[in-house]
């Protein structure tokens, strides 16, 4: 049913339709509304049977999810930012053990400096953990992806992370079409575990594995992700046939057929990008967008095909590898393996800085005139950076840069008003 509700609420209600049996979480912005709503449904008895476990930390949240999943329960949790880092060891364990936990990651920057706003640093920090990582473009897709995530996770025995832009999506109130229970029940069969802690048929899960088999265990995990590359588009297609909604899949092209410049991005910025592309198209520029929905497994072939005819590819990223450059860009470059295509990286939206259509128009315009630097930081205040560099040059005890920059900005903005 189409309703005007908050993204977090839509995710929570969709998770409930998936009938999770154990939900455990520790509150952290901007994920909190999701878990609060799920908790309220358990307490009210509208989500039953389900055990909601309040834990003392994110590390405990993922550990409880691992334990629950190992006993054959459908397990769900949600986190963000530092919370994800705090559970990092258990995140790797969930994937290493092949337990099909589904987790919502309400994407948020990582401190220090402490920052509660959106970027993709948290998702990037666990990109090699063995979890499948799906990025939602809209709140509709964020809700829908959770059903597909449980199906995918349980079929393949791989945990799935649904990445949803914190605040931008989680706190936005929009028209969202929620699925019916009967549909979810038919789409998502009961969980049939491949391995289960069962006193009637005892096994041990989590054995120490030495050099004699570790590489094989890892390679098997890689093969399961390659299997996911097959299943993700099939599941999206089945979902589309049943609902008419294009949620999920590997990549999502927009106006790329004849595009000379294609911008590649993930998450909610795709909507703003599409509006920008429409405008530039009206001005006669041949530009398009490629959304990457599945970041892990990385759909190299689909990316390569989509970008085959572009003369320039601009990867717009909400994260970067400090001291190196783009993260998604690296995957795109390997997937394309074409020297004749110009590849540019634009880092944008760090720590919640708004990515505006005006700034995106400038990116597309610069790209069309081949004036983008290999690595650009969108809307970076170079003068403020230069002033801090000068302070550091002038005196040894220049103090903490974060605080200096805050002070610098206030001074500048007051000066501008006077």
């Amino acid at each position: 049913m189409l309703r005007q509700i908050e993204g977090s609420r839509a995710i929570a209600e969709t998770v409930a339709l998936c009938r999770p049996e154990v939900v455990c979480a520790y509150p952290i912005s901007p994920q909190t509304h999701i878990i609060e709503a799920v908790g309220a449904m358990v307490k009210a008895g509208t989500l039953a049977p389900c055990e909601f476990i309040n834990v003392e930390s994110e590390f405990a949240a993922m550990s409880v999810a691992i334990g629950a999943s190992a006993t054959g329960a459908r397990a769900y949790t949600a986190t963000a930012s530092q919370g994800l880092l705090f559970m990092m060891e258990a995140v790797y364990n969930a994937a290493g053990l092949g337990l099909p936990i589904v987790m919502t990651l309400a994407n948020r920057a990582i401190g220090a400096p402490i920052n509660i706003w959106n970027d993709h640093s948290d998702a990037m920090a666990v990109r090699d953990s063995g979890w499948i990582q799906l990025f939602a473009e809209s709140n509709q897709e964020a809700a829908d992806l959770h059903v597909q995530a449980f199906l995918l996770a349980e079929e393949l025995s791989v945990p799935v992370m649904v990445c949803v832009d914190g605040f931008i999506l989680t706190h936005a109130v929009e028209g969202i079409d929620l699925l019916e229970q009967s549909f979810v029940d038919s789409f998502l069969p009961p969980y049939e575990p491949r391995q289960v802690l069962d006193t009637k048929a005892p096994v041990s899960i989590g054995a120490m594995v030495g050099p004699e088999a570790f590489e094989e265990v890892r390679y098997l995990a890689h093969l399961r992700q390659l299997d996911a590359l097959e299943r993700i588009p099939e599941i999206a297609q089945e979902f589309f046939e049943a609902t008419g909604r294009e949620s999920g899949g590997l990549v999502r092209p927009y106006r790329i057929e004849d595009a000379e410049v294609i911008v590649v991005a993930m998450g909610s910025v795709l909507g703003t990008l599409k509006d920008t592309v429409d405008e530039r198209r009206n001005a006669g520029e041949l530009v398009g967008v490629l959304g990457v929905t599945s970041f892990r497994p990385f759909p190299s072939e689909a990316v390569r095909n989509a970008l085959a005819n572009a003369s320039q590819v601009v990867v717009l990223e909400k994260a970067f590898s400090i001291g190196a450059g783009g993260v998604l860009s690296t995957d795109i470059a390997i997937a394309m393996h074409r020297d004749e295509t110009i590849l540019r990286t634009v880092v944008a939206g760090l720590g919640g800085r708004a990515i505006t259509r005006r700034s995106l128009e400038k990116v597309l315009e610069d790209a069309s005139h081949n004036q983008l630097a290999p690595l650009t930081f969108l809307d970076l205040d170079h003068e403020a950076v230069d002033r801090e560099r000068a302070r550091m040059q002038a005196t040894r005890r220049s103090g903490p840069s974060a605080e200096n920059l805050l002070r610098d900005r206030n001074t500048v903005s007051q000066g501008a008003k006077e």
Partner: protein
Amino acid sequence: MFQVRIHGRGGQGVVTAAEILSVAAFDEGRHAQAFPSFGSERTGAPVVSFCRIDDREIRTHEPVMEPDAVIIQDVTLIHQVDLFSGLSPDGYVLINTSRGFSELGFGNFFNEYRSERLMTCPATDIALEQIGRPFPNAALLGGFAALTGEITLAAIDKAVREHFVGSVGERNAAAAATAFDYVTSKAGEVARASTN
């Protein structure tokens, strides 16, 4: 697309106002998107929320940079925060105060703007009267409906009653209706003054 920016202070229901407006627009069969400015939530701190209304799917997720209307829930913000950034000369302004627009000390700032679209409304007074508590947001939405015609009072009424249940909903809906009448009659005065 019609874009609204709401300025107020933490605790005044700034985020709720945008949400209710979006629900009202949704109920009228339109596409709507409401979202907060994502600050750390502190009572009394300046807060901004946004609402977009359109007849087609809203894909963008940037903050509202060029609002068609600005609603000011707290008049003490007017010399502290850049409230009218990006507002076009055709834009609407609705300020919660018992004073008139010309008494607010804007000087020549609004010379290029259409005077019939610049409005004040004593929403806090109306709220104290109707609700018994100083929450001006429902009243301002009633005033917004009268000022812009972008939404009907009936839709605001329904959305307010959905959000605030029971008698609180009744009283907020009454506050919205009172503000709607206030702005409608004041707009009539402005129109008569400009034709005379």
